[in-house]
């Protein structure tokens, strides 16, 4: 069969989800945000939750997520997405409420909101994009930046004596009674993307079942901030980020095992 004979609607096995609209995303080439947006759109579509999903967008590169995924969104002040999501979910318990946040948003300025929402066990899902850097503002050090990692504000590498240790926040959240599911995933290979999608699906289902707070950390790349090509950024992530942020489930108190 020739490629032209194969290209028929009935033979499609993968395509852009309908909820991810025609707008070209502003993300840099190869940015992990794009892959995770696609997964969020696919999961909402597969759950048939288009009309009940409400996302809370962060400040950071994903600030304009509402331009790309065609569900309802609210834009929160920097780091405050879990507080906004708390109100949205409490007032609309039948809605699927999730936050989408970077590490600067979730683990720096928003640490208090993150910890208290998780500790209260709010029935929200938190999608946490950990690229170890402030992407949007030009690649400054974040709390999650690795020791020795070069950023715009640590040109000689992060120093523990001056800047402290990288903040590994997901295990901290897993210690709180309010979280039911805390997992760490990545999206650098097709297999990893499929696992990350399953994790997002489970987090969204937990939220709808009222089981507590779910956190899906995605260890991500920021090729612009890291000053690497997207493919090299993936390699760097595997070599360095995975040591500090190993992928896998950190906590799962639900009966559904991934």
């Amino acid at each position, binding site marked *: *069969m020739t490629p032209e004979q194969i290209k028929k609607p009935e033979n499609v096995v993968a395509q852009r989800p309908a909820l991810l609209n025609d707008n*070209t995303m502003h993300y840099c*080439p190869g940015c992990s*945000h794009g*892959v995770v947006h696609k997964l969020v759109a696919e999961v909402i579509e597969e759950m048939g939750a288009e009309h009940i999903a409400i996302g809370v967008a962060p400040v950071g590169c994903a600030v304009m997520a509402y331009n790309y995924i065609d569900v309802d969104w609210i834009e929160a002040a920097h780091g405050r997405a879990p507080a906004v999501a708390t109100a949205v979910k409490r007032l609309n318990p039948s809605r699927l409420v999730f936050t989408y946040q970077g590490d600067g948003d979730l683990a720096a300025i928003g640490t208090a909101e993150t910890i208290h929402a998780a500790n209260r066990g709010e029935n929200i899902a938190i999608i946490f994009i950990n690229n170890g850097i402030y992407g949007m503002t030009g690649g400054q050090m974040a709390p999650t930046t690795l020791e020795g990692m070069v950023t715009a504000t640590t040109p000689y590498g992060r120093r523990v004596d001056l800047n402290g240790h990288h903040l590994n926040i997901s295990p901290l959240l897993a210690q709180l009674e309010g979280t039911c599911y805390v997992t760490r995933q990545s999206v650098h290979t097709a297999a990893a993307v499929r696992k990350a999608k399953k994790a997002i699906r489970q987090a969204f289902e937990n939220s709808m079942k009222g089981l507590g707070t779910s956190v899906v950390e995605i260890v991500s790349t920021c090729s612009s901030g890291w000053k690497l090509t997207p493919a090299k950024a993936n390699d760097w992530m595997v070599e360095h980020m995975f040591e500090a942020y190993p992928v896998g489930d950190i906590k799962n108190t639900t009966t559904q095992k991934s």
Partner: protein
Amino acid sequence: MPKITGAVEIDRDRCKGCDLCVVACPCSVLALETHDVNNRGYHYAADVNPEACIGCAACATVCPDGCITVYRVVEK
């Protein structure tokens, strides 16, 4: 043995030439254009070796911009 054949269609103007699909493809079907650019100036990805495609969808799965549609047929 049934033969599995695949084909891909790439949304050229949505592509940012990140190369991740090229790296992900197990059958060396894809490559970035070396001369031609799309409407935003990126060397876009193209199926330079289309007969080798097995329709595994690895390329579409890793593409951050949802540019790739994958087709697959199983010939008995």
